[in-house]
């Protein structure tokens, strides 16, 4: 039987089908954060159910913590401290390791997991967070769940799951200079829609994907959840092996050699059958910017807000509402939109390579007057690395705030936010209504585009700037 990479990992973790329908799947690693982890741990404790294998669980503070320099457990979000304390107490009681605020390894959960080698190729990993799919970039089966399922996984080291459908998106060609995995992810959403991969595990394959480094692959897989996918995955290759080697929780010695043999066998067989196959040409992709309130409402940066007749019928439903919320009219050129703020951060685009590319654009330039510009490194390790390279000076000299790591203003939890009707160009993943603050208007883009726009004071094409 010819199998996909997904089938190989799934079959290796399938304990059985106790009821004949859903599979009982073994979970190698569980990640928790203070937003949803505390409530799961608290609920288990209240029922007197133990965490089965605390060694396999990693918890981190990222969602609610402030990102101001000198932050403490007190947060701008009114009851944020309760979430932090509950997670601290819950992990302590269960014997789960926690990367707390003062840990050098603190950071956004999907950034620190690859960085520390917690996620390994061929493993199953879950987290009560939808962007867990990012970590499929390492060739792992990593997917997001809700709190009740997190409780199930903590209590039993397993999940009851229905086998998803298999989809392969083969991306040929190569991304042009100045075009990134973020632009590719947005272009795919624009083409196939936010329900485009519903019920499927998406394998990204093809020459354009193979050419991406791991950080770019993480960005591409990150937006798998925006596709309504079960998760996303990329077969491990030499690039993956190089990336994992030497990381904190990566195997060593003989075990490393055995692991690498196992990992490199994890590719879809030549004749493996997918339920859905899509193809896409990377060469066609330009820097992309969203104009609406779902990530599929996106155009190339030199484009304009489409007229209702120019978008598919499926997208027309929310069209008037999106235009009204965003304060836009059909035909408006994206590059003509002045911005109030620029945000570089989030599990999509806040790794060291993202910051380096943004810094290359900002170097020697200044943020336009009146634009609030913020850079939030994805992890404390990324922040330290950036500071060793002097990138923080580049950001600060340009007029960006340089923050402590966390989710920050990727989402609004009741604390810090952008203002109502503020137009924000953002390297994050969701442009939903009020996602970044009450009434805030978010335009998703790559870190390069965010940097170029911050300088110009309006949405701007990074390819037009000399680096």
């Amino acid at each position, binding site marked *: 039987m010819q199998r996909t990479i997904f089938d190989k990992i799934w079959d290796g973790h399938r304990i059985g089908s106790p009821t004949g329908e859903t599979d009982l799947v073994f979970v190698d690693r569980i990640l928790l954060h203070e937003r949803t982890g505390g409530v799961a741990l608290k609920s288990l404790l209240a029922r007197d159910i133990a965490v089965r294998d605390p060694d396999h669980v990693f918890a981190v503070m990222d969602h609610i913590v402030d990102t101001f320099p000198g932050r403490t457990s007190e947060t701008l979000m009114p009851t944020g401290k309760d979430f932090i304390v509950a997670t601290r107490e819950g992990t302590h009681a269960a014997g789960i390791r926690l990367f707390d605020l003062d840990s050098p390894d603190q950071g956004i959960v999907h950034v620190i997991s690859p960085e520390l080698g917690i996620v390994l190729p061929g493993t199953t990993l879950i987290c009560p967070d939808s962007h867990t799919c990012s970590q499929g970039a390492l060739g792992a089966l990593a997917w997001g769940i809700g*709190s009740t*399922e997190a409780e199930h996984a903590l209590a039993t080291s397993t999940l009851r799951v229905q086998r998803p459908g298999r989809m392969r998106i083969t991306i040929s060609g190569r991304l042009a200079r100045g075009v990134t995995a973020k632009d590719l992810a947005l272009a795919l959403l624009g083409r196939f829609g936010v329900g485009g991969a519903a019920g499927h595990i998406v394998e990204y394959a093809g020459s354009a994907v193979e050419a991406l480094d791991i950080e770019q692959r993480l960005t591409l897989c990150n937006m798998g959840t925006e596709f309504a996918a079960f998760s996303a995955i990329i077969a491990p290759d030499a690039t993956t092996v190089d990336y994992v080697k030497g990381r904190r929780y990566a195997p060593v010695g003989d075990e490393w050699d055995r692991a690498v043999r196992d990992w490199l066998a994890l590719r879809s067989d030549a004749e493996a059958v997918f339920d859905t196959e899509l193809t896409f040409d990377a060469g066609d992709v330009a820097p992309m910017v969203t104009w609406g309130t779902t990530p599929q409402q996106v155009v190339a940066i030199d484009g304009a807000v489409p007229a209702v007749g120019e978008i598919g019928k499926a997208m027309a439903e929310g069209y008037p509402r999106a235009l009204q919320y965003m304060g836009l009219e059909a035909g408006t050129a994206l590059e003509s939109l002045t911005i109030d703020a620029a945000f570089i951060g989030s599990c999509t685009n806040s790794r060291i390579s993202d910051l380096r590319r943004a810094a290359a654009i900002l170097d020697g330039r200044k943020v336009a007057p009146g634009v609030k510009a913020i850079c939030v490194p994805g992890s404390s390790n990324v922040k330290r690395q950036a500071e060793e390279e002097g990138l923080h000076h580049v950001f600060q000299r340009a007029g960006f705030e340089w923050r402590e790591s966390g989710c920050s203003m990727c989402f609004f939890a009741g604390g810090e936010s952008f203002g109502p009707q503020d137009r924000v160009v953002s390297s994050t993943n969701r442009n939903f209504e009020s996602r970044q603050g009450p009434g805030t208007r978010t335009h998703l883009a790559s870190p390069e585009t965010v940097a170029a726009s911050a300088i110009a004071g309006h949405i701007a094409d990074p390819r037009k700037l000399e680096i």
Partner: protein
Amino acid sequence: MEPFTTFTAVAAPLMRDNVDTDAIIPSREIRQVSKSGLADGLFAGWRYLSIGERDPDPDFMLNDPALKNARILVAGENFGCGSSREHAVWALAEYGFRTIIAPSFNPIFRKNCLANGVLPVVLAASIIDPIARGLAAAPGSLLTVNLEEQILQDEVGGRWTFEIESEEKRALLSGLDPIALTLTLSDTIAAFRDLDERERSWAYSTLSR
């Protein structure tokens, strides 16, 4: 979990596609480390005139007095997309919704529904659209959901069957807790783990670091 029984209730139409969990329960409305206290924040961005206040927006359907006791929500494509926050389902359930009918659901959201005794009914948009138009034309109309028979009925003779996995159906009907069920398989899980650890020691040995 409360077992799911056949019931007849007011159905509310919310015919927007891609309703995300930030819209269902905005993050700012999740103030406690708790699964309850969320109903007030349900659809807060749409239900109230201004953020942080509680003055109802008369244009939002849930504020129609005829829909006050709605327990069935009729929705558009890709309902529950976005953040995996189970608070979205906790808020819907606490408000009173026990069934959501849509052409498609986000997979995590759908799982979260099942975990909380909320029935996600998938029907084609071509079936749902006329139902929703009927509900909008006569606010307060009732629908009947019969999970046992997998049938949805309206008051004027409309009758549709829907599909659901039999295991999911049994779980909803019995209200049994999946964690307790899986814990009965503890020895099987332990045996799997022991064997797996011998074959894939690399996935285990570094975790005590």
